[in-house]
């Protein structure tokens, strides 16, 4: 098998909003009233090495539906798709680095033939100053499977909390609210991934 040289990544720059966040291309609300599952809101900030909010980052998320089924041809398991849920979202940070998106709690998905992965949301971070996007994940502190998740197990215990969203006890709306910050650099730096290419 020949392998062509890959095209390098470059920064998304500061001027992506009109293309990526035009009114019909933003999807920070992934759900409608008919979407199955527990509706949740995830909120936090993207922070730089000085602890300052990053005003020009993009977060892209990808997740399974409540049954743990991905809306993709590679997931051909006999589990229901939800016509009211695609699993993809794209969010730009605000001037103070804040982000927020509304979705559902995903179901657990397989890791390999024997093991299961805890419910999680895949996250890609793009932004001015990021020459290549960063991959990470969001887990949930109130899911029993989180402690034994095989991807989290690859991370030293002291850094695992950077990927675990915490239930906000002060929530007031109709959805459950979780909090997580994405720290690009320094103390509390979020764990970022190298995804095996094949």
């Amino acid at each position: 098998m020949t392998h062509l040289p890959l095209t390098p990544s470059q920064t998304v720059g500061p001027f992506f909003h009109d293309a990526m966040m035009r009114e019909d291309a933003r999807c920070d609300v992934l759900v409608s009233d008919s979407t199955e599952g527990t509706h949740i809101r995830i909120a936090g900030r993207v922070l730089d090495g000085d602890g300052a909010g990053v005003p020009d980052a993009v977060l892209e998320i990808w997740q399974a539906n409540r049954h743990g089924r991905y809306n993709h041809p590679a997931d051909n398991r006999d589990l229901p798709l939800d016509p009211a849920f695609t699993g993809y979202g794209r969010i730009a940070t605000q001037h103070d680095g804040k982000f927020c998106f509304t979705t559902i709690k995903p179901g657990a998905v397989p890791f390999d033939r024997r093991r299961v992965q805890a419910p999680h949301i895949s996250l890609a971070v793009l932004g001015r100053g990021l020459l290549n996007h960063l991959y990470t994940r969001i887990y949930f502190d109130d899911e029993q499977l989180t402690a034994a998740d095989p991807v989290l197990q690859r991370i030293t215990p002291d850094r695992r909390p950077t990927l675990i969203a915490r239930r906000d006890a002060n929530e007031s709306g109709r959805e459950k609210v979780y909090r997580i910050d994405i720290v690009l650099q320094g103390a509390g730096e979020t764990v970022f991934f190298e995804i095996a290419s094949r």
Partner: protein
Amino acid sequence: MSTTTIGDIVRGDAEIFPPYLYEAYRSTIKRAPTRTLVEVPLTLSELTGPGPTISAVTPDDADLTRNAGTGGEAMGQRIIVTGRVLDASGAPVAKTLVEVWQANAAGRYIHRRDQWPAPLDPNFLGIGRCHTNEKGEYRFLTVMPGAYPWRNHENAWRPAHIHFSLFGNSWASRLVTQMYFAGDALLPLDPIFNSAPTERARAAMIASYAHDVTEPEWALGWRWDIVLDGPDATTFEPPRLGSDTVVSDPLARSEPAVIPSERSESRDPHQ
């Protein structure tokens, strides 16, 4: 480029992909992670992705010279930008969304944070999108983007470029990059372009003038192929037959894009 401090944290092939820390591009200094990346295998979470399902495109979206919807045509040198989207095995990535954005012919974005004194073009949004066809081919009609100044260093100018965003078949194949134009004298001076670590990597971001793409009495042609990372297309099975569930498209709401009328914010986006 003069010598610069280059970090050792890279995602992907270090001969191809830029490091997160590349000090000559100053915005990397406080945003580059410092801890070694944690390797994760390809699970179902990485083998899947939004690429096959996001599809909101109209034919007009690929014509940046007219998609502002004003009835007028954008000013500038009309160009056709076309090429193929491939996976690393050389297989075409068909029916995948390609999103582009760029400065106008004078080097100005419609973005409210772009405030340098070059004219806006009321007939140019600088945004477009299309799907690749079965052969993996994309094609845009646009105008040649201008170079523009930025505040990264003294007398800094970005070479002409078009931003590209592609999803490919899986989460692992996501790519956001920039396409440059062969022969641009600003390329050797640009730290973003030069953050790609090798001559071969940098060459892979440069479009070639293509006379066979050029249309007489109409537009100059440029060709640029894109090779995406991630598992090969042959990894994927076709969707199950008999499944009648149609999942709605997250980008399907179609409202016309508009040029923002107020540009009050004057934040410097470059520091």
